[in-house]
């Protein structure tokens, strides 16, 4: 099978409100920097482009097409889009390269969540007959999951607060983070509940932002002469949309994706997990069987800033950065989609 390399990764800061900047204006600077990092000029220099975004955020059908304006698609380019996090745009791009239809690809994701009420916007992506008409928001669904964990003694509120405190402290080293600080477990526990049993700190913030990545065959990456990391595996699995039929205290689909991606074939130095709620990081860590030797969410994870539709790709980018810098030799990146970790993707990255 064709070995695929990540050659470049860039992202914006995660900000609570990007103001008057529109989606195209969010994307353009990131594309400029990612092309520069790879030693390329523009989208004419890659064989394929794939983006991830969500029309619900912009509130209009086919809003994602506007994102193409950021590329400069003349002369014509080969372009595709997923109505998913850009981690799945990476997946599509990898398939494209493995099928021999491209040697290189630009992947980007973007989301401007601030203009709407994100938890309520997301409610309209749920089952259209049984859930969407009730307008049950994403935070309340996560709270139902957290309550099950607490009731069954699988986590304590202190365990959850420890996840938050570690995120805030780790994020001090992440220049793109929205929430960072020297926060202690007791600081978190002193907070009142928000949507009980969750505290506001247990929930990721709403962020605007974009990220972009350039991948290529290893041969192409060698030709470009830039430092790269190798994607040794990627897989994704989904569970039923009926929340009552899932074991919400576990993540079967994450475990299956990790097996499919070959996570167990070596040591995991670093893991970036897309856990929008503190208890979900614990579910994922256990589902993946990660132990002491793995540094989990050294960037702070999405509790430090959650750029909808770009954060999954950013998890891959964070691991890429650590491998290229020599901080880690092998790592995994996880992305999620849907309520209570419904759909999960795992990417395994290794030192070249």
């Amino acid at each position, binding site marked *: 099978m064709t070995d695929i390399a990540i050659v470049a990764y860039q992202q914006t800061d995660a900000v609570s409100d990007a*103001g*008057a900047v529109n989606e195209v204006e969010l994307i353009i600077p990131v594309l400029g920097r990612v092309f520069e990092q790879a030693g390329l000029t523009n989208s004419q220099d890659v064989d394929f482009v794939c983006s991830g975004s969500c029309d*619900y955020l912009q*509130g209009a059908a086919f809003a994602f097409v506007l994102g193409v304006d950021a590329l400069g698609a003349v002369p014509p380019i080969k372009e595709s889009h997923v109505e998913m996090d850009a981690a799945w745009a990476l997946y599509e791009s990898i398939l494209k390269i493995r099928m021999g239809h491209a040697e290189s690809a630009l992947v980007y994701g973007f989301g401007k969540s601030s203009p*709407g*009420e994100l*938890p*309520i*916007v997301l*409610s*309209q992506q749920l089952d*259209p*007959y*049984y*859930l969407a*008409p*009730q*307008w*049950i*928001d994403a935070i*309340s*669904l996560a*709270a*139902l*999951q957290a*309550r*099950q964990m607490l*009731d069954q003694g699988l986590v304590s509120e202190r365990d959850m607060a420890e996840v938050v405190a570690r995120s805030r402290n780790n994020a001090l080293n992440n220049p793109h983070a929205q929430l960072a600080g020297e926060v202690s477990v007791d600081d978190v526990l002193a907070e009142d*509940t*928000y*949507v*009980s*049993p*969750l505290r506001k700190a247990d929930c990721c913030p709403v962020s605007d932002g974009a990220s972009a990545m350039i991948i290529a065959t290893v041969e192409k990456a060698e030709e470009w002469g830039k430092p790269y990391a190798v994607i040794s595996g990627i897989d994704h699995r989904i*569970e*039923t949309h*009926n*929340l*009552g*039929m899932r074991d919400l205290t576990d993540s079967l689909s994450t475990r299956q994706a990790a097996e499919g991606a070959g996570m167990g074939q070596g040591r995991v130095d670093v893991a970036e997990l897309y856990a929008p709620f503190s208890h979900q990081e614990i579910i994922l860590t256990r589902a993946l069987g990660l132990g002491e030797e793995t540094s989990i969410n050294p960037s702070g994870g999405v509790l430090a800033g959650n750029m909808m539709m770009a954060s999954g790709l950013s998890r891959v980018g964070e691991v890429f950065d650590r491998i290229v810098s020599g901080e880690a030799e092998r790592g995994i990146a996880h992305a999620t989609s849907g309520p209570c970790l419904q759909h999960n993707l795992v990417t395994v990255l290794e030192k070249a």
Partner: protein
Amino acid sequence: MSQPEVLQQSFELGFTYTRSVGPVVGRFLTELRNRNIVGIKASDGRVVVPPMEYDPDTAEELSEFVEVGQEGEIVSFAWVKEPREAHPMDRPFAWAMIRLDGADVPMIHCVAANAESDVATGARVKAVWADETIGFITDIRCFELA
């Protein structure tokens, strides 16, 4: 450089079309209009409420309807102190996973209660019907403590 003014426009997000709901979802919603609640038997015999068209494990088409009770037990709940504008209640309430009597799989709906301390996992609740039922999930206005 000064920041440009942000243009603002209100926008109602919603489905601007109607759909035929089919024999499974349609049966459930029609039963709601008549103030009955039905589930469906999954491949392994579990009763699923609201009914699903296909079994998520076997992909088998499901068709055996079962009438279930209008009372049940809270499996999990989230207490909403500050309801959002779109929420079904304008005072604090709970979202809950409720396993109705005769069902094996919990459904999600809202529970009216005066205080968080009144709600608990394992608490018994009963359905409260809307004044007018129209064949919508919101025909069950909410659940209340039984």
